[in-house]
């Protein structure tokens, strides 16, 4: 480190080159830190568990276009047939599935007097008595639905079922004292449409990944017959999803009064819903990687040039007794000084950029511990980039000093 003095003085003689690299480092730190933060936010969002047995679940949507078919009977026949397919663990009718972007949001009241703006929003999932097992939910209190409790809901009969099973999160929000089981809740204000909570399951997300109450969900024992669209959720034995999907699709397509619109594994559905976030993660990762490459190569290029320029001085230093290590050390320290100056500006730049992105586009605040990580990463990048030109400098023979003068 005793060389810092002369290195610094030498630097001041090529201010522009050093400033350019420093600025580049500063901008790189600002971009990389913010991009990394956005990536981790999105990745965290995507990784949240939906509550389902994701790897072994698929959904099927069919569209019935012959109004002469008895839809209620078709539901029974379909479910019997699907449940008898080998490898099927459970199957249920449904009108929505978590994190699909499409579903029913409704409000619940824990008190007939509760005003409408205080009602508690939840994602309504209409299933039959196999719903709990099909969605892979664990009952933490109470009981499952009985077959006779499942109601058919259609344009002719909008009656709600008499009971429901709620997620732990919804139970806690409705009854913060923890005594939600067996309580009555209302689907509408003024004590209309009561339902009883007969069970509580651990966790399931609603249909909208960005909603603030994504964990408020409930199963309602009902079969939806609003138009010809019919949806089934099927859970397979572990590892058998592909075979089961093929068999179920083949069965469903056998009926000529309907078309099979969607046959989709749950994982695929989740990828589709999160496609914007996944795209953001991938694009920003490419940005970080290329940016590191460009900045690194820029350092290599400039250092290489400065080695060429200083060939004679390097030769002279070697002739005067400097070791190869001394020469490498010189370039490393020089680069470290420039990088560090850049990083100092970059820290301010990172916070400024984050402030701008957050106030304008609501990306959130970068946690401060990201900053030292970014600094260490760019120090490393700078040192690695300068290594090659530095070694080239070290290989300049001392004899060069005596030549060509």
């Amino acid at each position, binding site marked *: 480190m005793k060389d810092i003095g002369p290195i610094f003085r030498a630097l001041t003689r090529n201010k*522009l*080159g050093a400033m*350019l690299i420093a*600025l*580049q480092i500063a*901008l*790189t730190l*600002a*971009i990389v830190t*913010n*991009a990394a933060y*956005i990536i981790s936010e999105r990745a965290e969002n995507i990784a949240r568990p939906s509550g389902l047995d994701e790897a072994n679940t698929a959904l099927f949507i069919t*569209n019935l*276009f*012959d*109004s*002469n078919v008895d839809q209620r009977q078709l539901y029974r026949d379909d479910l019997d047939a699907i449940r008898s397919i080998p490898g099927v663990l459970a199957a249920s009718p449904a009108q929505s599935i978590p994190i699909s*972007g499409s579903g029913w949001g409704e409000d619940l009241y824990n008190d007939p007097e509760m*005003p*409408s*703006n205080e009602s508690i929003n939840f994602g309504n999932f209409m299933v039959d008595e196999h719903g709990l097992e099909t969605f892979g939910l664990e009952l933490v209190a109470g009981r499952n639905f009985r077959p006779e409790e499942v109601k058919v809901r*259609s*344009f*002719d009969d*909008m009656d709600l079922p008499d009971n429901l099973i709620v997620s732990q999160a919804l139970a806690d929000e409705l009854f913060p004292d923890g005594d939600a089981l067996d309580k009555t809740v209302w689907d*509408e204000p003024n004590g*209309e449409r009561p339902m009883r909570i007969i069970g509580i399951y651990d966790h399931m997300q609603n249909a909208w990944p960005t909603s603030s109450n994504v964990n408020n969900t409930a199963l309602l024992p009902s079969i939806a017959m*609003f*138009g*010809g*669209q019919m949806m089934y959720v099927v859970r397979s034995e572990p590892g058998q999803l592909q075979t089961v999907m093929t068999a179920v699709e083949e069965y469903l397509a056998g009926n000529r009064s*309907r*078309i099979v*619109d969607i046959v989709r594994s749950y994982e695929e559905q989740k990828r589709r819903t999160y*496609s*914007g976030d996944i*795209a953001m993660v*991938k*694009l*920003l990762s490419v*940005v970080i990687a*290329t940016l590191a*490459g*460009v*900045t690194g*190569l*820029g350092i290599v*290029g*400039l250092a*290489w*040039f*400065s080695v060429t*320029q200083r060939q004679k001085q390097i030769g002279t230093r070697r002739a005067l007794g400097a070791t190869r290590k001394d020469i490498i050390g010189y370039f490393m320290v020089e680069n470290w000084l420039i990088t560090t100056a850049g990083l100092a500006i970059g820290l301010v730049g990172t916070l400024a*950029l984050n402030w*701008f*992105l957050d106030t*304008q*586009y*609501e*990306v959130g605040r970068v946690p401060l511990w990201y900053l030292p990580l970014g600094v260490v990463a760019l120090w490393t990048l700078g040192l690695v980039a300068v290594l090659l030109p530095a070694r080239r400098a070290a290989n300049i023979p001392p004899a060069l000093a005596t030549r060509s003068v």
Partner: protein
Amino acid sequence: MFSYYVRLALASMKRTPVLSALMILALGLGIGAFMTTFTVYYLMSGDPIPHKSGVLYAVQLDNWDPNEPPTESAKDVQPQLTYRDGQNLMNADTPAKRQAQMYATNVVVVPEGDDPPFDESVRATYQTFFDMFDVPFLYGQPWTDLDDEGHASVAILGREMNDQLFNGENSVGRSIRLDDNYFEIVGVIDDWQPMPRFYHSDWSRAFADAEQIFIPFSRAVDGPMGPSGNTNCWKPMDDSLPAIEGFLQSECVWTQFWAELETPEQAAAYKDYLDNYVREQKEIGRFERPLNTFISNVPEWMEVMEVVRNDNRVLTRLSFLFFLVCVLNTVGLLMAKFLGKGGEVALRRAMGASRGAVFSQNLVEVGLIGLLGGLVGTVLAWLGLRAVENLYRGYQHLVQLDPVMLATAVCLATLAAIIAGLYPVWRVSQLPPAGLLKTQ
């Protein structure tokens, strides 16, 4: 002289191939990244109907729950209308030149012959839709007023659908089966793809294809063909009515509503009309919130609907900074390159070249590097756009590299390189020839 400078530039680039390649690559990457994100942003924020976007207005009425927080701007109000308010406006004598209520529904199309049935999105609307939005017709014409009033089973097909079902022949007078009903075809529209699809632009639909089947609103409601888009409700439906009637008379919003207002005076008169309508409705106990009506023309509506997403803006800003890094990088490399050329420059100066000549000769070299960087950038932008198309769903019609963007990319790169090169080139042209020649 210029071609001589170009030859000199090529020779000079060959002498420092690594440095030159690095500069071209850096510029190319910067341009590629920025052009990719900017193209998406530019296309998303494009005007879908340029010649009329100022006179087409989306209508909003604030019929929501009085207990909800107060309304501050159009963004706080539901973007759709109830069935009954839309119907009341359609049936009234308003100051608008044209109005159309509409919604999207899903049907199964059952082709004649052996082709398998398939699912299709249908737009239920009024005949005014076609003139209001300047929809071009290939065959036939819009259905008539009488068809709207008579709940007629008529349909208009898009060109693609007509190609698929009728091999592109004039299908006017023939019929199409939707679910288990037949509709008589009265018209076929030519290619028509407003982008973004302004007339129904929920976040998931803004870049969706225009529908390929259109039927009268009144007929679709008779169906009943339920809405396939968002339906939002805040108030319980009337239990005493049959379910469908209860839904139609409810405060649920699920229809889009547009009006064509040709002058600012007409727009003001229409806005007054809406305010009066809401006041009347307040008297029968509806619209319990403070009076809030909004009309927004197409560009304003695209803002209200936040069609350009924050993610796209973030990506555009970040990739612009990325581009800046690449330019800084190029300045540094150019400095290195040109200062290394001191000897050659000194020689040229000594042989009689003026400072200006040296300056312009080296600027040509910088421009050439920029041009090549721009070309590399264009190729990268093309690849980037293909990647974006694969990453996002529903961007298929959106992501195209048009000639304007192509030219912009190349010009931007050349310009950036020249700006980046100005200082190094000026520095090298100021070098005194004598001193440098001596050291050789």
